[in-house]
């Protein structure tokens, strides 16, 4: 792999950019790999990357039904934060956030991490108490957050209306080191680094069955033939239930559509991420100038990746109350992704009833921010059989009643 650098840009500029090589190779699948990861989204690629980087396991294939990063990795609102209440969540999300800080250098790929700050507005008395509690919990967990006053909110976000008729802004939970990153670049950067380690990224290859013998996984059946493996990682977000059925077990997961939309580009007006949980809306401004808006999830099972119009209407109607200046903005486009929701709204990173088969799913509405931490923990789990980061997120926690109740995980009320 040729490294990207200022020198490389200058060198290529001098020769009409003819020397750039492909970021990752597209090989034909081999007959056998040590590890097969299903799903080349952020979480799958990060798992493969840390398997190679931290554990030296590079005989790995990452299999993708569609195209790389074409699922929820390319459909989210790119927010990165770690202001969670429960200890296991704070640990894995804070690990992820800290890895984002150095990801561009680590991967030699600019993921445009922008630690611009994430603000969660408190608009009811209940939220004031809730966020103050979170701020105290974060202080104990070593996650830097603080409770800020409405005056400080206005200072950070001049376009905000504090005295909204129905939902006044009463303060906010502020995480200065949270922010955004370029979501596609995260997938592309990991893919390039994996490919450079000799791993195979196989796109347009659908898994149609999981092969097993004596309760142990032996490989997968795909649209490109059979591929044998010693260990299998299922990292397919919304379609986890479909894969789990192939492997012969059920998951405590339901798939619903979550949608987002962007406005036409406007001049810079808001340089932090604002989440308004009471009214189900969150907003940030992209580097292109578009206002990126996310809303609530549909309440019913759905695999259509499009979402419903009345949810957009609810989200935008509520945000206009808090940000009156966006009322004349035209919305450019809208899209949906299929998110996998668990009973306690926390993810599952776990061994499964099938020996040698591991699952990473259930990130629900907040998976992007967790990508590096999730990959880090999942790689350790797959390589060593246990990981302190993933221990609490095991599949049997539902059976044993050890919930990690983060029903505010997406910053919206589910």
């Amino acid at each position, binding site marked *: 792999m040729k490294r990207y650098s200022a020198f490389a840009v200058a060198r290529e500029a001098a020769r009409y950019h003819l020397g750039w090589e492909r970021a990752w190779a597209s090989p034909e699948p081999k007959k056998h790999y040590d590890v097969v990861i299903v799903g080349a989204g952020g979480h799958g690629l990060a798992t493969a990357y840390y398997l190679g980087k931290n554990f030296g396991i590079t005989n790995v294939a990452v299999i993708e039904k569609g195209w790389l990063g074409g699922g929820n990795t390319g459909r989210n609102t790119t927010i990165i934060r770690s202001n969670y209440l429960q200890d296991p969540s704070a640990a894995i999300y804070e690990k992820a956030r800290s890895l984002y800080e150095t990801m561009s250098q680590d991967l030699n790929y600019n993921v445009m991490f922008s630690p611009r700050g994430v603000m969660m507005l408190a608009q009811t008395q209940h939220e004031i108490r809730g966020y103050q509690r979170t701020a105290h919990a974060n202080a104990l967990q070593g996650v830097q957050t603080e409770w800020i006053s409405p005056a400080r909110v206005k200072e950070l976000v001049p376009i905000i209306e504090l005295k909204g008729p129905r939902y006044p802004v009463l303060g906010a939970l502020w995480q200065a080191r949270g922010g955004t990153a370029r979501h596609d670049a995260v997938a592309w950067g990991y893919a390039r680094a994996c490919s450079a380690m000799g791993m195979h990224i196989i796109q347009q290859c659908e898994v149609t069955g999981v092969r097993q013998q004596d309760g142990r996984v032996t490989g997968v059946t795909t649209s490109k033939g059979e591929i044998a493996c010693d260990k299998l990682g299922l990292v397919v977000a919304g379609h986890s239930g479909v894969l789990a059925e192939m492997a012969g077990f059920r998951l*405590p997961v339901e798939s619903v559509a979550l949608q987002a939309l962007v406005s036409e580009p406007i001049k810079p007006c808001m340089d932090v991420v604002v989440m308004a949980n009471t009214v189900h809306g969150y907003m940030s401004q992209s580097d292109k100038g578009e206002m990126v808006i996310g809303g609530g999830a549909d309440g019913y099972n759905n*695999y259509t990746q499009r979402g*419903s119009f009345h949810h957009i209407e609810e989200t935008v109607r509520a945000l206009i109350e808090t940000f009156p200046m966006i009322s004349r903005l035209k919305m450019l486009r809208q899209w949906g992704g299929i998110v996998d929701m668990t009973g306690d709204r926390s993810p599952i990173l776990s061994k499964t009833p099938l020996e040698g088969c591991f699952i990473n799913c259930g990130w629900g509405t907040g998976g992007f921010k967790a990508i590096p931490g999730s990959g880090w923990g999942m790689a350790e789990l797959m390589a060593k059989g246990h990981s302190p980061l993933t221990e609490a997120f095991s599949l049997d926690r539902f059976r044993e009643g050890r919930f990690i109740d983060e029903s505010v995980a997406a910053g919206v009320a589910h």
Partner: protein
Amino acid sequence: MLTLHCPYCDVQTDETELTPGGEAHLTRHGPGSDDDAFHDYLFSRANPRGVHFERWRHGYGCGKWFLAARDTRTLEVFGTYEAQTTEPPDHILAAIRDKRPGWTRAS
């Protein structure tokens, strides 16, 4: 927008009038049942990519629960029926097989 027929009011209703209630026909395990059965009742869900049976409440109408057979991949609705049953009625199953030949209901 998803529209469903309320079998009690006999009207076609928008999803904004309705409250989704999750998977239908779950066997409700209670005290005395073993841990696995109770776990499955509380948490395990079919979550199919295709034909799905689910509960809906006509919240802004009659307020009653009814059941629907729907395709989660296409949003096609095969039919709705009253909730006072533990199994999908034959005419619903026939409507599904009519549109999805070869479909069988997972146990």
